[in-house]
């Protein structure tokens, strides 16, 4: 059985959709990012409770012409990238305010 990955928006960022673009500012380095359409969908759906597989199936595959396998691979890589920039949190467990990944941010 394959592992499930969960993603949640980091509480250490500020974000606003301006026009058609999602601008995100991370506290880490006070850095500004502009999310592309796929990253915007992933970021908006990152509620900590929905596995990334489901986000890909229901939100990304329906929007772009891409196979589920390819979309999942790309989405996982993208989530990892966003996590490295402090924008998303990733865990193999659902992410709640008391999750270890959230606790780590508070330390």
């Amino acid at each position, binding site marked *: 059985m394959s592992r499930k990955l969960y993603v949640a928006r980091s*509480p*250490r*960022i*500020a*974000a*606003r959709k*301006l*026009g*058609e*673009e999602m*601008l995100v*500012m*991370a*506290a*880490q*380095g*006070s850095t*500004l990012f*502009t999310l592309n359409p796929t990253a915007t969908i992933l970021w908006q759906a990152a509620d900590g409770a929905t596995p990334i597989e489901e986000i890909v199936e229901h939100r990304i595959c329906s929007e772009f012409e891409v196979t589920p396998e390819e979309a999942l691979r790309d989405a996982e890589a993208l989530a990892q990238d966003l996590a490295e920039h402090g924008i998303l949190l990733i865990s193999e467990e659902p992410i709640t305010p008391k999750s270890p990944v959230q606790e780590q941010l508070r330390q």
Partner: protein
Amino acid sequence: MPELALQVEHYSTVIAVGGVAVRVNTTDSRFLELLEKRYSGFVSAKQTGEFEFDVELVESTFAKPWTEVSVGHHSGRWFMQRADFRAEWNPATRTATIQQNANAYSMDAVLRIVHTLVLAKQGGFLLHSASAIRNGKAFLFAGVSGAGKTTISRLAPADVTLLTDEISYVRLSDEGEGYVAFGTPFTGELAKLGENTSAPIAALYLLAKGQENRIEPVAVADRGRELLANVLFFAEDPELVHRVFQTACDFIHRVPVYRLTFVPDARVWEMIR
């Protein structure tokens, strides 16, 4: 037997930028003179300030000369350091202690950092931009080094009051109805202090040098991106980053933002009224 006591003289001056008065205390009268000369026009007649900076002059270096300023937050206090200074700022007591070399550049850096922290909470920011008042309205000219901030400042006609050629002070008005630009002593290549006055902001121009003078609208996402790219902010504190981000988003919805491409001659000011 009476105790021996060393009498140390204390000297103070109050520097007010954006109406926020900072009293700087030192034991060195020559340093005080240097500050009063450096910030002339921004030295207030007040005896007290909203904030107190206690300066100790030292000859040490605190970091490698090429390193940028670092700002950290710990136990309710802010710590900032560069090669030429080390400072601790306590927002609760509104006091800072500064160890620095005897020059005004270090004080400039501390003032800028403290103002960014204070402004962030007040719905404002320092912006890498020139600014000027004409007909009672303030205009901001933002851009990276080389975009034309100094050039447009130098070309300003006599009826224009220059607020700064380098770093603008922007804050929501007391009534919360719009944004106001204040003069600053933070100078760029022009090396001329701004006038210590203020006016409501009528427009922000994103500068570009070109073959003709023209003003164009800017897409909303570009407005946000380019404004934020020019906001001075040093702290990695999530709450303050959130506030600055929200203020910038509010600003671009309230203040018209244009791209100003200009030929570097005085005619550009015919379009700015």
